[in-house]
Structure formats: structure tokens, C-alpha cells
């Protein structure tokens, strides 16, 4: 398997190879990896990569997946335009 061709984070185009390298450098929590690689910061907000990276971290740390935390979920749950947000109150009483 060519790890550089396995894409874990499609939003930010991060490969398994890049992830492995950062884990080797000592970044072994999702929050660390998010800040260094931008995984989970794109349009899908980690909906795709969270469990993939969780699995890789569990393997790397020799832990159960349930012991590996993923990212803090931040609002919004899906992208909303600034115009919609600015005008959203026009339908309210």
C-alpha cells in the first residue's frame, strides 16, 4: 500500500503518510493533529476523517479506539452563508 495515496482528510487533502509522519513526531492526539495538519477544519468538519484518524491513532498508541478522543465538535453543523445568517431574523416576529 502506498500510504501517500491513501487520503484520510478529503477537505484538506491529507494522506495517511502525512498523518503517520506527524504521529512519529509526537503529535498523538486528534487536537494536536488538527492544529498541525488542518484535519477536521474543512467543510465537512471531520465528519469523514474523525473515525479514520481515531483508528490510526488507536493502532499507533496500541490502545482501544474507545480510549482515543476525537475533536471538539464546533458549530455550525453544516455550512450556512453569511447572508442567510445576517437576514435570518426577517422571518421572526
Amino acid at each position: 500500500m502506498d500510504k501517500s495515496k491513501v487520503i484520510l482528510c478529503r477537505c484538506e487533502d491529507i494522506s495517511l503518510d502525512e498523518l503517520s509522519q506527524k504521529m512519529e513526531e509526537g503529535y498523538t492526539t486528534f487536537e494536536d493533529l488538527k492544529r498541525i495538519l488542518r484535519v477536521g477544519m474543512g467543510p465537512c468538519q471531520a465528519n469523514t476523517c474523525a473515525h479514520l484518524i481515531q483508528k490510526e491513532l488507536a493502532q499507533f498508541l496500541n490502545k482501544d479506539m474507545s480510549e482515543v478522543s476525537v475533536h471538539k465538535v464546533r458549530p455550525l453543523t453544516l455550512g450556512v452563508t453569511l447572508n442567510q445568517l445576517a437576514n435570518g431574523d426577517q422571518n421572526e416576529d
Partner: protein
Amino acid sequence: MKTNVLIIGGGISGLSIAYNLAIRGVQDIVVVDKSYFCGGDTGRCGAGVRQQWATKTNCMLAKRSIDFFEKAKDILGYEGNLEFKQEGYLILASSEKEAAQFKQNVALQNECGIPSRVVSKKEALQIVPHLNPEAFISATFCPTDGHLNPFKMSEAYMLAAKRLGVSFHFYEEVLDIDKEGDRITRVITNKATYEVNQVVNAAGGYSHEVGLLAGIDIPVYSEKHEILATEPVAKMQGPMVMSFSHNIYCQQVPHGAFLMGRSDPDVPHDHDIESSWQFLEAMAKTVTHILPPLGQLRVVRQWAGHYNMSLDRQPILGGVAEVSNLYLACGFSGHGFMFAPITGEIVADIMCGLTPFMDVSELSSERFKEKQDFIIEKSVV
């Protein structure tokens, strides 16, 4: 465990102090942080670096910090990309009163060697064509202000400090500080007890609480500031656009996303950093008024962090009268990231008994005891 210097807080200020102490030959330095790498306010900041200030002290600190950022990659030997861009800050004036104040600010900035200038509405619209011309009357522009990736800048300091022998302990929280007379003897964390010679309080949003552990009441408080990020788009805006009267800063980072924030004048002084819908709505109304085309962009994420506020909106750096081996780097009032290089330089100089490049009495916490009529920095969002 015996430790020469214990730095509390692994944000950009603690990192810069650790690095600056190490290059001055100080050995046996430990940095502790209660969270993950960049888990505090450095990792939550707006990523802007600017020199357009209204007090001489802030101008001098900012100028010297930008001088460092320009060479940081080489000086720190960082292999990654700091995403440093110098495409300026455009600060909008929306009243004659504000324009007059900005003219004075620019004169002061120029005195300090900062290449800012007053620009007409017409010129401002050439610099950022999608500005709403109705939203301002004139502006100031400094082309050497800009952006820097806070995670990458922090990593650059951390790796450089590690190479010089500094130890970093994340997920380690300070629980207690023991003193004998006016000296700190021991710092107790959830993982270890350190017998220390010197201690630095660079705890960002929690610096007041760390001060209390050492028996001092540092005149700072924390308040929540919120930010949002949009989806990334092709480059359309070079400079940070900022307005104090409209209460907004907004920039497109090199990655393509727009980051924007504003403050809430009624925010309580506490440690709440939850995201609010009130911010989203107010931010959206403000930005679509000032930069109308941005209304088309989708917001993908919002978050918040602390500003650790001082009474005059200028940092508190250096020793304290009550505790002889405690040093402060706090009260940055939202600007700790952009002042990090000079913070490290000044605090390390003071701790090593060297003479800093500027008069540091203006930065000591003692300034608040001596007078009540300090000059307050107004150029803050």
C-alpha cells in the same frame, strides 16, 4: 524534581520566553501546560499581526515583533511554512473624530519607524475593492502588517526551544505554589512537584488564577471573544480589514478561508468560551455591511477564546514586588500572539539581569499602583 526555571503556560508567550532564555544560556527549563499543544488562547486567536497602535509602548513592541517575524523561519530554523504574509492592515475610520485620532496614531507610528499612512476612501477602495464605500470615510494602511499561522509559529518556537534542551509537558496543570518569605520554593502540579529557582506566569486566560496561587492579585481579567471561519475560496482580499467603530476584524488567510471576529462590550469577566448564535448573527450583519460580497461565503466553524485584559490594554511583563522570583507575561488584551517575539526578549532579559531594549517600567505591573490615569490603548477590537 529540581528545575531551574518553570514556565506556566505553553502558549506563544511561554514558548517565546523559553526559547529566549535558552539562547541566553539558561539551562534546565521546563514548560508546563494544562491542555494540548495550542489548546489555549494562542490556538484560538485571529492570526493577525499588526503595528498600527495608539500608544507608543504598543507601537514599539509591535514593530520589533514584526522585525522578528520577517526572519523567524531562518532564525528558528523551522522547516515548515509559517504562512507569514505582509499584505497590510486597512483600518477604517467611519467618523471625523475617528479619522482625527487615526491621523495622530499614524504620526506616532511613523515616529517609531512603522510605515503606516492615512489613505483616502478612493485609495482604500483600490486596496480592497469590495469594501462598501458607504461604511467608512477614510482609512489608515500599513503594508508590513499581516498574517501568521499561530500553530506553525508556536511549533517553530517549540522545536527550536527543544533543540536547546527545553522540556515541554502538556496536560500538566499547576495546582499549588509554595513560598518561603518572598520566594517561590515549589510548584505542585497534578503530575509532579518542582523545586524552582525562577517561575514565569504566562498562563494566558488563567494568569490571574496562577497569580493567586502565588499570593498576588494581578490586575487582569479574562473575557470571551468569538471568531468564525468560512469555507476556503480563491484569493480575493490581501489585507486585514478592521474597524473599531463597526467592531470587526476580517482577513482572508493564505489557506483561503476568511477569519473574522468582533467583541461584545457586555461580555462578563469569566472563563466561558462557548460559541453563541448571538455572535454569528451580529458578525454576519457587520461583515455583510462592510464587505458585501462575503455574504455569499459559507461559515464552516466558530469558536472562542479569552482575551486576558489589563487596565490599559498593554501587556504586563517582568517581575513583581511581592514575589522576588516570579515573572509575569500576561494582560495582553488580545494581542499576545503578535507581541510574542518581544515578550520573550524582554522577559528573558529581565530574568537574566540584562538590560532590555526599551524602558520596561511602562510594562511592569507596578505601573497600576503608582497612578490611576494611565494611557489606555483604544485601538482594540
